[in-house]
């Protein structure tokens, strides 16, 4: 117990890295996923095809393999990066492919007539998205996306495989010194759970907030 207390600052830094990796991955994948998702739904066919191939390929590879491909493969292409950024890039690619599919599903659930109503009053494409399509699609997008954020936080534990000292790796290192795996793994499990439970509560709250839109 004493040893665990002693390890807390170290674990705290691990948690910080876990949250940092998750935040970067979530933010980047949200931006890229919405951009590519719109390209998939509304883009000219070459763009849509490229996004479709990207998404299908990425989602067809286990995330673990993806991480090693980026970490070992990219330097061979002359792209050197630290294990931190290699891990972040791999997780971002994976998450982006998921966001693309959430966006496609959410936009696809909006009736065609909405776009046409917006066209008929003379709105340009970006305004049609911003004022008509996105405000309605966000309601379908949020629940799976927040679910995906919790996946990203859990999935970020994989960066420990590249030696990045996130929460998971910090726990492993403390166990390496104390030889007391159970209390530490339980503590780790509790921290991941606490973060993700608050996120899913937030998701339920948001769902209620958007429920005024009728189908």
């Amino acid at each position, binding site marked *: 117990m004493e040893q665990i207390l002693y390890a807390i600052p170290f674990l705290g830094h691990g948690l910080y890295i876990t949250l940092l990796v998750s935040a970067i991955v979530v933010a980047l994948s949200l931006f890229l996923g919405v951009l590519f998702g719109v390209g998939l739904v509304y883009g000219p066919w070459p763009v849509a095809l490229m996004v479709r191939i990207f998404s299908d390929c990425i989602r067809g590879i286990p995330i673990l393999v993806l991480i090693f491909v980026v970490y070992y493969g990219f330097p061979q292409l002359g792209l050197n990066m630290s294990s931190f950024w290699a891990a972040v890039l791999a997780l971002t690619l994976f998450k982006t492919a998921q966001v693309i599919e959430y966006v496609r599903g959410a936009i696809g659930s909006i*009736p065609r*007539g*909405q776009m*046409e*109503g*917006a*066209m*008929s*009053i*003379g*709105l*340009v*494409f970006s*305004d049609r998205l911003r*004022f*008509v399509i996105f*405000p*309605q699609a966000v309601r379908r997008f949020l629940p799976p996306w927040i679910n995906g954020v919790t996946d990203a936080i859990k999935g970020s534990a994989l960066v420990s495989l590249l030696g990045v000292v996130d929460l998971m790796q910090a726990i492993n290192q403390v166990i390496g010194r104390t030889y007391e795996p159970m209390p530490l793994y339980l503590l780790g499990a509790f921290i991941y759970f606490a973060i993700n439970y608050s996120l899913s509560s937030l998701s339920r709250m948001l769902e209620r907030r958007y429920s*005024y*839109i*009728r189908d």
Partner: protein
Amino acid sequence: MASEHLLDIRQLAKSFGKHQVLKAVDLHVSKGEVVTVIGPSGSGKTTLLRCVNFLETYDGGSIRIDGTEVGYRNDGPQRRRRGEVDLARMRAETGMVFQSFNLFPHLTAAENVMLGLRRVRKKPKREAREIALHWLGRVGLGHKADSLPGELSGGQQQRVGIARAVAMEPKILLLDEITSALDPELVGEVLDVVRQLAGDGMTMLMVTHEIAFARDASHRIVFMADGMVSAVVPPDQLQAAAAENDRLRSFLSRFSATAH
């Protein structure tokens, strides 16, 4: 080529794949005129209206509003699709009211009307709301300005749809079977609004199955069959024309059979 017609459609052709839906349609509407298109289902009426608002591209012929070609510009002998901003500006000149309303469900009635005023006509918020309230009042919905579409009846929603279109002060209003999705008892309130607009001199091109309404509200009736204009007549000569046009006669007979 100068033309005194506000809307001038010449030799309009449109195919979906191999299926030619419009075959050399000629049609014109003058300022202040109300023209009604009737015809059997599948004859291309909706497609025609959608082409005028460029919700649908077309393959041949031309559509001009005030002399400007809709959707395309001529680049020497080449016909090119207009850019996004250009298309949007042209669409704002033609109001469209849809069979399925297509109101924005996340916005109130007033916000539905204000959106185009704000983003396209660049009106400040207060002025946009004043205009919206004015038009909602004109369609009898001043008291529903802050209701969401989901809280309104079908007839009320369609009247918001009309207010949204006319608030943009379009040169021409296109109405595609705007009462077809309504319960019979709600049809009257919507047609009354259309009749009022016609009285105010709004130029309209409409598709309807309400033959009696078409007869007393329009200046000309166009009968379409198989993607072609089969007859154009003043309303009081519809019956006379039917005597000479087999397809028109059989089309109209279906209505008189169910009119009681």
